[in-house]
C-alpha cells in the first residue's frame, strides 16, 4: 500500500489530512500533533485494510535546541498484513511533556512508556502505573536528556567538539 492510499484512508476515518513522507530508507514517517496521536493510532489499529496491530518500538529523543519541541516520542508500528512499518513522531515542550498513553491500544506500550518516562521524564497521561523501571525510584534526574553528563563534566577530551558537534 502506498503512502497516498494510507493518507486517503486516514482522511476518510479521522477527517483530518495527514502528510506521510518516505525517508531515504523506505520507511513511512508521519508527524503528528499531541492531540491527534491517540485517534490516529486507534484508526491505524482498527482499520481492516491497515491492521497496524503491532507496536514494535517506542522511545524518546531529546533535542535541546528546538524551542517548544524539545522532547520527541517515536512510535514504530508494524502491520503484518501489509508488511509495512510506520514511524510516528510527536513533539512536546520540555516544560509540559505530556503525551497520551497508548496502553489502551497496545499492551506492550506499558513498559516501553515507563522506560521513556524513566529516561526522559515524559508524562504519559492515562498510563496505569507510570513509575521508573530501570533506574532506582529515588532518582531525580532523567538520564537520557542531553544535559545529564555521562562523564565527568570537567573532562575536556570528551567535549562535544570531539564528536563532531
Amino acid at each position: 500500500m502506498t503512502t497516498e492510499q494510507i493518507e486517503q484512508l486516514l482522511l476518510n476515518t479521522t477527517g483530518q489530512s495527514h502528510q506521510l513522507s518516505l525517508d531515504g530508507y523506505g520507511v513511512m514517517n508521519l508527524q503528528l500533533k499531541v492531540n491527534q496521536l491517540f485517534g490516529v493510532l486507534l484508526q491505524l489499529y482498527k482499520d481492516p485494510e491497515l491492521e497496524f496491530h503491532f507496536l514494535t518500538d517506542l522511545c524518546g529523543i531529546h533535542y535541546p535546541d528546538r524551542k517548544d519541541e524539545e522532547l520527541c516520542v517515536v512510535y514504530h508500528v508494524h502491520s503484518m498484513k501489509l508488511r509495512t512499518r510506520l514511524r510516528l513522531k510527536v513533539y512536546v515542550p520540555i516544560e509540559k511533556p505530556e503525551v497520551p498513553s497508548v496502553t489502551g491500544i497496545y499492551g506492550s506500550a506499558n513498559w516501553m512508556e515507563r522506560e521513556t518516562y524513566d529516561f526522559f521524564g515524559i508524562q504519559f497521561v492515562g498510563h496505569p502505573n507510570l513509575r521508573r523501571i530501570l533506574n532506582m525510584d529515588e532518582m531525580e534526574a532523567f538520564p537520557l536528556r542531553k544535559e545529564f553528563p555521562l562523564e565527568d563534566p570537567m573532562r575536556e577530551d570528551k567535549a562535544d567538539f570531539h564528536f563532531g558537534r
Partner: protein
Amino acid sequence: MKTNQEFIAGLEAFEKPEIPYTTLNLGPTHPATHGIFQNVLQLDGERIVTGEQTVGYIHRAFEKIAERRPFYQITPLTDRLNYCSAPINNMGWHLTVEKLLGIAVPKRVDYMRVMVMELARVADHIICNSILGVDTGALTGFTYVYQWREFIYEIYEEICGARLTTNMGRVGGFERDFNPIVFEKTRKFLKEFPPVWREFESLLTRNRIFMDRTIDTGAITTERALNYGFTGPNLRACGLDYDLRAVEPYCSYEDFQFDVPVGTTGDTYDRFLVRNEEIWQSLRIIEQAMLKIESMDPIYHADADHYYLPPKQEVYRNMEALIYHFKIIMGEIEAPVGEVYHAVEGANGELGYYLISDGGRSPYRLHFRRPCFIYYQAYPEMVRGQLLSDAIVVMSSLNVIAGELDA
C-alpha cells in the same frame, strides 16, 4: 436497608481473604531465575494469584554510553545484550550502520554472517531448551548437550578470538577470512551434533513427566501475544509464522531454503518444540551457507575505504592507508544525517536498532528494541492461577536474558 458504613464494612470483609495471601520474593538472586530479576508473587497456598516483576538490576545505560562512542566501539556494547547469542547482536549492529552509511556488502560476507548467526541461534536454543530440562528436573540432557555449545564457542574463537562476548566482525565485513579450521570444525559439528540433539529430544519430547510439567503451563493466545509485543520463537509457538528472516529478509536470507516452524497453543511445550525445530532448520542453513562460502572467491569485506580499516601491512608502508586508519580509529567518518530502524531475528525475538545520526562521530541517539524487555511484561498474566513450580518453567521457556532485559 444497609447504612453506608455497614456496606463498606461488608466490602472490606469481602476483599480480605480469610487466610492472607503469602508474599514470595522470587529473586533477585534466585538460582532458578537465570539472571538478576525479581518477581514478587502473591500466593494462595501454592497457586499464584498475582505477580509483579522488578527489573533493572543490571542496567548499564548502554544507550547513554553509545551517544559518546564512535560506531565501531558500540559493537562490544551489543555483545552484552543477549550474551547467549552475541554474534547475532554484533551482526545486527553492523547491518544497521551499513544501512545508515549506504555500504553494499558482497554476497560472500552476507553468507559468512548468516553462518555465524545461525551458529549463534543454535547455541542460544541449546541453552534455553536444555535449561528447561534442568528446571523440570532433568539435568542429564543439559550436561550432555552443553559440550556442543562449548564446541560452537570454539568455532567463534577461530573466527574472532573471543568466546562469549565476541565483538565479531566490523562495519563492512569481517576483520579476516574464515580459516580452514572454522570449516573443519563446523563440518564436524554438522556431522556429530545432530545425533546428540536427536538423543536429547528423545529424552524429553515424549517424556511423560516433562509433558505433564509443560503442556498447558504458561499458555498465551495469539491475540494476547501480539498485544504484548511477542516476537521470535515465543510468538511462533502461538501459531503465527512471523519470522523476520522470511518476511523481511536481511543479509541475503532469501537465498536460503528453510522452514518456519509454528506451534498451536503457545504453551511451554510448544515453545520447546518450536526451538527444537528451529535448531534443525538452522543446521540446514549453516550447511547451505558453508557450501556457498567455500565455492566463492575469498572476499571477506566490502570495498569501503572510508569505513573499513586498511590491512595492517599497508598502514605501515602506505601513507594513504595510515591516514585512513587514523581517521577511522578516531571515529572521523562521514556519517550522513538520518535515522534508521533495522531489525534482525535474534534468538529470542526481533532485535531492533533505532539509530539517529546527526552527522557526528557517534550516534545522536541509539535505542535498542530488546525483545525480552517487551515480552517479559506478559509474565504475570501467563503464570496467574498456576503453581509456583510452573512459574520457574514458564520463565525459563520464555528465554528472558537479564543483559538484554536491562540493557
